[in-house]
């Protein structure tokens, strides 16, 4: 059974996304530890990519800063090793297909298993293409996390039936970034998912404040927040861990 399941055992899960190496890997490690201390149930670690086509300007900026600082896939794996000394909650990677492909899918998944990464999210790898990576992932016990979008409609059942770890429900059209309003009928999407799988689902894209998190987690099993956290890191840089911790506490408290 996947380690990821544990993230959903303490009520609604709060899942922060953090781009590794923004502004540097030492700060990322501190941010992750603050996040865990303040109630994060699962950590999404972003491996930066030069051209993140599913991201809005905020996370694009984090990718650029991290790469400019010299972060590589190997350095991110080193970070995971360091974090795993004390971090017990599940951690998953969020990156792009080419980062895994260029590393070698098998080598990448093996390294995930060795270092303690539980799953992987690739936003540019839809259902039709996932087998190319899923085979190696299965071999090493890494969950390939599926995304379901507001436009998925007739595809929801198909995706849910093969889902592993958790399902990432994309709240809105477009790219990542904070939104004032989420208009998609999340409840309807989640009910189709529930008819097809027991795998938990968390909602992400556009969530920035406790009210939104509470609402989205209420409709699902958890809330994923990226851009709002990256904005704090962008603003406070090396001093950001404390502020991220405070923010995560307010979000986790809202969805408990």
């Amino acid at each position, binding site marked *: 059974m996947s380690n990821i399941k544990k993230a959903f055992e303490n009520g609604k899960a709060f899942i922060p996304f953090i781009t590794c190496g923004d502004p540097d890997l030492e700060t990322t490690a501190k941010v992750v530890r603050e996040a865990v201390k303040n109630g994060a149930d699962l950590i999404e670690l972003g491996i930066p990519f030069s051209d993140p086509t599913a991201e809005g300007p905020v996370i694009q900026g984090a990718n650029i800063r991290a790469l400019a600082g010299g972060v590589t896939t190997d350095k991110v794996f080193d970070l995971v090793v360091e974090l795993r000394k004390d971090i017990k909650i599940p951690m998953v990677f969020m990156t792009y297909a080419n980062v895994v492909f260029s590393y070698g899918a098998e080598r990448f998944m093996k390294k995930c298993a060795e270092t303690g990464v539980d799953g992987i999210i690739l936003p540019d790898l839809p259902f039709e293409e996932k087998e190319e990576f899923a085979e190696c992932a299965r071999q090493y016990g890494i969950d390939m996390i599926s995304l379901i979008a507001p436009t998925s409609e007739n595809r929801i059942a198909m995706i849910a039936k093969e889902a592993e770890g958790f399902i990432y429900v*994309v709240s809105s059209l477009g790219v990542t970034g904070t939104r004032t309003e989420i208009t998609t009928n999340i409840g309807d999407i989640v009910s189709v998912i529930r008819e097809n799988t027991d795998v938990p689902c968390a909602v992400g894209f556009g969530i920035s404040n406790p009210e939104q998190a509470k609402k989205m987690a209420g409709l699902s099993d958890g809330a994923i927040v990226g851009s709002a956290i990256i904005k704090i890191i962008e603003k406070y840089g090396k001093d950001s861990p404390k502020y991220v911790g405070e923010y995560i506490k307010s979000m986790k408290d809202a969805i408990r």
Partner: protein
Amino acid sequence: MSKGRFGVHGGQYIPETLMNAIIELENAYNHYKYDPDFQRELTELLDNYAGRPSILYYAEKLTRELGGAKIYLKREDLNHTGSHKINNVLGQALLAKKMGKTRLIAETGAGQHGVATATAAALLDMECVVFMGEEDTKRQALNVYRMKLLGADVVPVKTGTATLKDAVSEAMREWTSRISDTHYCLGSVMGPHPFPTIVRDFQAVISLESRSQILEKEGRLPDAVIACVGGGSNAIGSFYHFIPDEKVRLIGCEAAGRGIDTFETAATVNTGKIGIFHGMKSYFCQDEYGQIAPVYSISAGLDYPGVGPEHANLHDIGRAEYVPITDDEAVNAFEYLSRTEGIIPAIESAHAVAYAMKLAPTMDKDKIIIVTVSGRGDKDCAAIARYRGENIYE
């Protein structure tokens, strides 16, 4: 293996948000491809609006000066809007209209695809937004003005290297945020399936014509067909109907920029490796961790770190050759063709002319080369003048 493969290349590596849109497009295309009314309307537009067929011109003076193979120029520069891009755009715009879409978005590098899309949108009463790297809006300011004149919104893209790849990324992002009324009119044989196939089919008119034109003029097939390759749409169009003719050499000319032994190059097949980006598996310029490289070429239209998946496969199976042409060689060819034949080629097309200048003298006089002049060079005059140290106002 998923759909839309050329050997191992191609596929559909896109966000889930776009999957139903892509499937809808594929279904619509498969329907209209065989719909006689659609084909009639498209042929009508190509013939009476775009000015097809384009002529196959025997460049007698060029041939004589180079002293080798006979050189024919496939004059895509004479199409309405000044390049081959209109072939694909009319097809896609008509298809989008049939699908009930009212808005076209597009990426553009040199601005030729943007101008063609803005043109089709004006003609077919559709909204149009063109994404263009900010760097390219400076290099190709004239085309920015043309697009605006045609009623399109031009969005300068400031991310990354602010060139073609960033324009593609931004157009994809825009499409994920607005799908129901919007068609992404992709300009090259790249991106997720079905785009590489759709664009190739619409551009294949180039070789459909040139093959029968050369048979009519020479009574035989050419020995080589040469075209420039960025994403590769004019090249695949120029090659397609010659692919089964195994004796015809197919040669794609990549932008080497300052040279393939420098970092300032965009010669993907020559310097890249296999990867996954912009919806497809193909060759890309990238580092050892898969980070896409900041490529460079004097030509905004070839300044792209990838190549269409069908070209990647033609390379793998050895059916086509991909050769690098530097900025210097292309600029020389730009000036040389202007002087010898009175034809100012686009700087992109000048890469193909440059290779013909190398190849023709090595071939016997009874051999035949067809070079595709994919576009006209008016848009490049100011940039080439600057390259030669002369500051002129556009």
